[in-house]
Structure formats: C-alpha cells, structure tokens
C-alpha cells in the first residue's frame, strides 16, 4: 500500500479533525459543569475557579446511588437470562437442527429490524394487566424478549460454524445432550458469548423508550431513563445538568475503557454480522 506522503498527511488531518469533533461536546459539557452555580456559562470557557463541588451536588440531586443500583438490578435481570436462553436456542437451531427450526428462525428474523416503538403501546397495557407497571420487571421482561431476534441470530451463527464432528465425538463418549451443551459447546462459544454479553449490557444500560413509558419512578429506571427525568427536573440549571449528565455517563465510560478492545470488537461484529 504505497500512499504518497501528502495523501497520508491529509488522511491524518481528517482523522484528527474527526477526533476533535467527537470530543468537543464532552469538553464543552465539562467546562459548563465547572462554572459557579447560578451563572450562565458560555460555549467553551475554562473557569478561573473550577467548581468540582458541582459534581457532588449533582450526585445528590440525581440520587446517583439509587440510580446505579437500579440500573445494575435491571442489567442483572436482563443480561444473564438473555445470554443463556439465546445460547441454548442458538445451539438448538444451529447444532441440533431441530425439526421446524427454519420456521422458528424465520420468526426470529422477523423481529430483527423491529423498532421498539412498534410494540411499546401494547406492552404498556400488557404490563398493566400483569400488575408490573412501575416495577423494574416492566423493563426487564420485555427487553429479554426484544433482544431475542438479535441474540438468537448471533448465537446460531456461531453454532452453525462449529463442526458437527465435535458433537459426534462427544456422542460417542456417551455424554447427554445437556452435558455436550454445557461442558463442550458453551466453553467453545465463549468469545461469541462475551461479545453478546457486552452488547446486551450496553443496550440495557442505555435503554430509554421502555424506561420512560413503563416506569414513572426515575429511581426504578435504567441510567438513560433516569437521565431523561434529571433533564426534566434540572433542565434550566445548565451547570448542574451538565455535571449530572457527565456523572451518569461515567460508569459506562469506565466499563468501556476497561473492556474497550472487546467492546469495539463486539460493536463491529455486532453491526456486520447482525
């Protein structure tokens, strides 16, 4: 690949411009968050006396402790179950090749491009009938269902690519289907499962529509849903709003930075394969 020096340079310049544009909103929010409370901040202006205490105020105002707990509970309710049942279904459809599997798989594919808005209204009444409105279950249960098209699709793609000889060998060893699944297939599927787990975590944490429709109490919502409520409450206090938004972003950012390699891999595969 012989790019001329000039071409390489313009490429670099564009890339750096892109990075600056990507980062500016964050920097601008930080500069606003550090202004003294009650002032009207402007654009990007490093405060002469940064008010780091604003973050402490926002932490209390947003009730961050409760929000973190709520988001974690929702993630704990959604992610392990989704990953487990999607892996089982992927195994059933991709390896066991159950009779009628093609039809079932087609049914799952149907949901792959479904906008959540298309089902949110009936879900509201369904949750009402079940008496689950305003509980975290109202977010957890529908999300598991809504993730199935992608998750099953993803795991099935993995299991179709696993050579059947492997299962045949295990069969000769006399292991049951469950042993084969749990002891042989799941450990082998670890990379696919890890990527899926990351995506499910991210989508759950950032889920907004279901949170605002099905749960009124912000402290029972996901982080994104709670942020919506926070904006409604503190929308006029720009300094606090920016501080609160940055705080609410932080957990995702930390998790992202720790697992960034896996995240990026998952996101790239997620969009290409999905």
């Amino acid at each position, binding site marked *: 690949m012989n*790019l001329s020096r000039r071409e390489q340079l313009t*490429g670099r310049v*564009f*890339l750096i411009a*892109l990075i600056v*544009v*990507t*980062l*500016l*909103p*964050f920097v*601008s929010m930080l500069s*606003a968050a550090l202004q003294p409370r009650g002032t009207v901040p402007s*654009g*990007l202006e490093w405060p002469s006396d940064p008010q780091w205490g604003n973050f402490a105020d926002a932490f209390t105002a947003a009730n961050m402790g409760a929000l973190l707990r709520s988001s974690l509970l929702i993630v704990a309710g959604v992610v392990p179950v989704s990953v487990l*049942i999607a892996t*089982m*279904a992927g195994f*059933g459809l991709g390896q*066991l090749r159950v*009779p009628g*599997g093609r039809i*079932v798989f087609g049914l799952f*594919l149907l949901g792959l*491009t479904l*906008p*959540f*808005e298309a*089902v949110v*209204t009936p*879900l509201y*009444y369904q949750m009402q009938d079940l008496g689950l409105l305003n509980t975290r279950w109202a977010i957890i*249960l529908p999300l*598991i269902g809504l993730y*199935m098209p992608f998750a099953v699709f993803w795991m099935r793609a993995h299991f*179709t690519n696993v*050579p*059947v000889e492997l*299962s045949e060998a295990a*069969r000769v060893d006399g292991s049951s*289907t469950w042993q084969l*699944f749990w002891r042989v297939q799941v450990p082998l599927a670890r990379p696919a499962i890890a990527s899926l787990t990351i995506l499910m975590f991210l989508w759950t*944490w*950032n889920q907004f*529509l279901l949170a605002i429709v099905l749960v009124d109490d912000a402290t029972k919502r996901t982080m*994104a849903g709670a*942020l*919506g409520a926070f904006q409604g409450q503190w929308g006029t206090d720009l300094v606090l*709003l920016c501080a609160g*938004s940055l705080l609410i*972003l932080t957990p*995702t950012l930390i998790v992202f930075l720790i697992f*960034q390699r896996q995240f*990026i891999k998952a*996101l*790239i595969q*997620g*969009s*290409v394969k*999905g």
Partner: protein
Amino acid sequence: MTSALGSAPTGRDDRRARPTPTRAHPFPWARAAGTGWLYVLPALVMYAVFVLRPLVLTLQYSLYDWNGIGVARWVGLDNYLTVFTDSDLLKIIGNAMVLIVFFSFIPVALGLLVASMVRRITTGAFGTVVRTILFLPQVIPLVAAGIAWSWLLSSNGLVNQALRAVGLGGVARAWLGDFDTALPAVGVIGAWVLLGLCTILLVTGMSKIDPALYEAARLDGAGPVREFLAVTLPSLRQEIGVCLTVTIIAALASFDIVYISTSGGPGLQTTVPGLEIYRLAFSQRQVGLASALAVVLMLLVLACVLPIQRLSRGEKP
C-alpha cells in the same frame, strides 16, 4: 438495539463456514425425542410473549378507535387513511425521511472520504486511541448525546461562540429552537453519533482490500477519483450496506435524541414518527391511530432496509 442490526451472515463468513453442507444429522436421538426443542423453547416463549403478541395487538389496535380505557370501536382502515392523508402526520413521516440524509448519507459519505484517505488506522497505540475515541458516541446513551448537543447548539453554546469568533455572529441563533434550522440541527446530532461507527466499519473494510488492486489501478493510470470508483467503492459494498442499514433504522426509528433535544418542536418541525406514536398513545389517548402509525413505521423500515440488503449481499462483480 437498532445500533447493531445489519445484514444476515456475510458472504465472507459463509466461505469460512460449514465445510460440507450435507451430512447425517448429528443427533438422531435428539431429533426423535424432540429434546432439541427444549433448548429453543425458552427464547421462543419470551419472544412470543413480549414481542410477537404485542406486535399482533398493534395490528389489532390499529383497526380500532380506542382511548386506552373505554370500549374500542371498530373503524377498519380509517386510521391508516388518516396516517396517509393528515398533513401533520405526513409531515412527521417526511421529517424522518429528512433525518436519513443526516443520520445516514452524511456519516457514510464522510466515513468513505476518511476511509479512502486513511486506508488503515495504524495498529499501534495511535490506532487504539483513534478507535476508542471514535466509538465514544456509540457507547454513551443517546440521551446524553442529546443533552450535550442541546447545550452546544443553544444561544450561548459552543457553536455560536465559534461563529462569533470568526465574525459570523449574524447567523448565530438557538439552532434547535429556530423553525428553519431545528430539523437539520437534530440531524447533526445523529450524524455525530453515527459518524465514528461508519468510519471505523469502512476503514476496517478498507484494510481488507488487496493492495494489488490499487497498484493495478495506478499502473492503468487511474487517478484518485477513478481509483475510488473502480476499486474502493465496489470492494466496500458490503460495509456500505451495513452502515446504511444501521443508520437508516436509527433515523426512521429515532426517538431518544429528539425527545431530549427538542421534544419535537418548534411546532412539528422535528417531530418524528417514534415521538408521535408515544404522544398519540400516552398523551392524546388515540391508541388506534398511534398503532396504525407504528405499523406504517415498521413497514417503512422494511421497505428501506430490504432493498439495501439485497443490493449489498448480491454477488460481487
């Protein structure tokens, strides 16, 4: 969830996969006993109860006039008639179409531009930093992006500050509150969110292109433009298809960004179908009409996405 929808397994993957498609069934006993179904069942039940059932109900509601509490009245296709004739609703659907330009075309075009110049992001530390930063907008909640950009585009925000600094203070305004600029301003937020993803997908695709193709093109005397049209574009067809699919769904089904940054205003300037469904169903109690709009939105997504899938997955020339 929309962020990761794309094409079915790619041609590339298929080649690596399944050495021989026809072989004996590996689990005759499982097949006979139907054990296999036990593995599929939990996922299927959750999907049926929380997706398929509501989907059928949406279809059903769309044929009724219902306020969500009282008795529903059968109205046949009247709600659909309203969706396709009411000027407000048509405008709202049009808004979503306009957003496609910003959410889809701009990120893909800019992404292609960057990709064709960078070709591959260095693998070292610089590359990691670039990838990490460009993915940030994908990781944060869209709500946060909406709040950040509402601030940037406000009268005292960074955008106006920059304009004033270069002597363009005359055009400064509250971009999201202005009748003419609100929709493009919302579009810019979406473009910001999706640009990094598209760029990285396209650059990743770019690095898989055989450099010999470029050398051959250069030997044939092709300039940068011809090279782009003859080598880059066809080789990236699949990646472009993925980018378009993901971003078009994001545009048509947009909700979070609009809800936070403008709530659909001023007037109906930035109202999108997702927001209108929410409003109709939960504020105005017109569940039937909301459901008809939901069905139309669903079909619109399919109508846009299926042709792209077909085009990008077809045999490469």
